[in-house]
């Protein structure tokens, strides 16, 4: 099903946002959304509006901070940047996701009839 876009798993969007901010530095909501879409090769089904729920969640946990500023084309926008605690969290999440995807990959690779 290559044409169907991927539904986001609960919690994955938050990690994506953290990673985006860690790589790109301060960024506004639209920028983050676009970046995630581009990075995933437009394969993620993302209502851009949902990014803001994720942002407020992360902000309330103290993993990112926000500040009003001016965008490249002179618009007033809220810029988000990752905090120190956010980076720590991202590191933990990265380890977790890598382990999970490794396990998933191995489990899904099991062939019918096969043994050890």
């Amino acid at each position: 099903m290559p044409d169907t876009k991927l539904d986001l798993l609960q919690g994955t969007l938050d990690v994506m946002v953290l990673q985006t901010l860690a790589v790109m530095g301060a960024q506004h909501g639209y920028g983050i959304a676009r970046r995630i879409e581009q990075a995933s090769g437009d394969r993620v089904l993302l209502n851009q509006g949902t990014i803001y729920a994720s942002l407020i969640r992360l902000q309330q946990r103290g993993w990112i901070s926000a500040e009003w500023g001016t965008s490249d084309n002179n618009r007033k926008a809220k810029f988000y940047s990752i905090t120190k605690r956010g980076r720590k969290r991202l590191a933990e999440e990265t380890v977790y996701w890598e382990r999970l995807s490794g396990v998933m990959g191995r489990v899904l690779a099991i062939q019918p009839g096969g043994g050890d």
Partner: protein
Amino acid sequence: MNGVFRRAFERIGSFFRRSRLDREFDAEIATHLELATDENIRRGMNREEARREALIRIGGLQQSKELHRQARGLPALEIGFQDLRYTLRTLRRDRGFAAVAVLMLGLGIGANVAVFSVVNDILLRPLPFQDQQQLVWIEQANGKSGLSSLTYSVDAYEGFRQRNRTLKDVTGYFPFSPPDNYRLGGHSDLLPVTAMSVLGNFFQVLGVEPAIGRMFLPEETQRNGRAAVLLAYPFWQRQFAGDPGVVGRAIDLNGMPVTVIGVLPDRFDFGAVFSPGAKVDAFVPVIPDEMRDWGNVFTFIGRLKPGVSVAQANAEAGILAPELYFNVKYPNSKGGYTARALSLKEYVSGRLRRSLIVLWCAVGFLLLMVCVNLANLLIARMGARGKEFAMRAALGAGRGRLIGQLLTESLVLSAGGAILGLCLAYAVTSYLARQGSVALPLLSSVRVDGASLAWTLLIAVASAVLFGLAPGLKVSGRDLQASLKDTGHAVSASQGHHRLRQSLVITQIGLACVLLVGAGLLLRSFLRVLDVDLGFQPDGVAAIKIDYEEARNPQRRAAILEELLRRIQAVPGIETAGITDNLPLEGNRSWGLRAKGQQYREGELPGTFVYVITPGYFDAMGIRIRKGRQFNWSDRADSQSVVVINETAARYLWPGEDPIDRIALINGRDTRIIGVVSNVRESSLEKTGAWQMYLPIAQAGPVGSILTIRSRLPLAMLSPTVMRTLRSMNPSQPATQLRPIQTSVDRAVSPRRFFMLLVTAFAVFGLILAALGIYGVVSYLVTQQTQEIAIRVALGASKSRVQGAILWQTFRLAAIGAAMGAAASLAAARLIASLLFETAPTDLTSFAGTVVLLALAALAAAAIPAQRASRVDPMAALRTI
């Protein structure tokens, strides 16, 4: 973990900064939209298309906003507040409905909280003593003839205290202490005071510390020791204006200086626990040596050793009792005692458990009826609001949201009801706490406390869920389209509603039926109790406690009283007068009575109630002489010992024979029976079969003197002359009031009256609720069937025919409800059988009365809508189709 707390904190913060955060988000999403639009334009779209595409990518502005709100704040709370605001708006629009609902709930909840407070006070709350679960009450096991057969002698007390191994200590009090047994001097008038004689260790065993001062010392319980008294708090407040300086001072009691050694705490209310309906002003120590030869004088209260159960104490008491001596001077006085121990709490309130549980059930039923009624009203409202809900559902409100809205509404209503109910309950409980004349234990401490508040909360929420859920389930099950199309008048769509409402009304009638039958049975029992032959005629009889010059010589005493009675009888308006030492339904004591020359088995003969009286007492009290004669003044100390016995004793001792002039043995003395009188209800209106005897005042020692007067004059007129006459004999006669004998009869029936009145009030309220329910359903029925009725009228149906049809439908509902209720009542009546007096649980009158009452209520409730139906104008009604 830190993040979780921080987030919760932030969420709560966001909840209060809602509008600012909303504005900020609006600005943020606007920028987002502009940035996206700009980019789309750069990609070559025209402005309009660019913006549209941007909006699509965002996924809906409103949705994003909702998501944002949910993530940042407390969505459940916000929805709750929204529902609340909406509910208040709706209810304000529908004031009539809200008022009726709150009123009904208020009455229902109020009754429940008030009854709960009483139940909590009497049954659930521990007694106001330290470690009260360790306290046990010990009395003789088969005491059937009053206090004397329940109590123990001084020697038995000392033996028991010494030999038992399960109790830390044993104490007791002298329950024969009559009211107003002391006179407080030092004022212009002597003041009557009720002092209870308690054993020296009484307060130590109960764990009651005096508020000021100290407890009794051992030397104060010895013959010729220092006289000491402890004051009860209210008496101290009233008589000594709460002056702490009174402690250590001597007061004049019965002409003797007695040192006040302390004041008991306010919360210690002896009467409330040990003798309901009585007040005790002070406590004096028992001097055991003085009472050693008085016979049975103490009831026991023990404190269990740690780890000992009441059952163990009971077993030990049962073994120990036969070993106790009535009087150690007589070796053969051993073996007459029995004993049983029960927890003090059980002794105080055990008897009332069933009545209180019945009461509790009755109010529970009542609340259930209120809920059913409200559910009915709400369903009727749902009929009108069906479209509103369908509209909200069509706009995207989920099932949960709609039910939530309905539950919020019912919670708001029941909160209003709970507040009103609490006010009512508060008023009722403070009223009850002041009813000193109701002989229920602990009643004075009834109040709305924390437990009552918790109970209120519980039943308010429970009832809200109960009556809010039915319409809630109804709405969620509805078909949207059908609701939107349903005009509210079409018959088919509302059929389900109607059936539900009918079954609710039937339930209500059934519940009302159970309540009414219960109330009817209790009312009948109450009337039967009032109707019993007391054996004396309380109407027009008044009593007053009198004092006269102490006379050791019985003949001298008789002479004084003869003169006193002569003067009293000379007072105009007094028909007869007499003196007794105990009045029926008040104090009592019992002695042995047996026919001389007869052998009886051990324990065969019951104790016989003893009354020491003067000539004239039988006439004054209206006690009927069945055989022989009554006393006269020539029954002197030096003449032959004589006695008058009651019919029950006469019939047992001399069956089928004439008892007159037979010789009986009383305290080892040969005594001639000179008369037989009617049986008097001596300790309860509801018990018969006790033996009674009367001894002349010149031949036996009285425990006090109560003057009884029969007169038609009002007491207020009589009192001053009687007092003047008494003072002419004894200037130190204390200033007491004449009181009607009827008051002690009233007090004896007061618990029954109390329960009967409450249950009847609940039943009447229940009947009204049922009538309201019927009215609601029938009105709705008529409204629904207007067109049908119109057609029938147009086709020639007469008014009475139309009315008859409506009444018939109502009657059917009522009949089904009453039939089901009657069946349930039969079961319920069996449960309360032990509370009934000379009334069968299947009492036809009560059942028939209930059915008639229900039928009348149903017809009355249906009459108004039926009337309306008969006035339907066929033309007008048919045009509105």
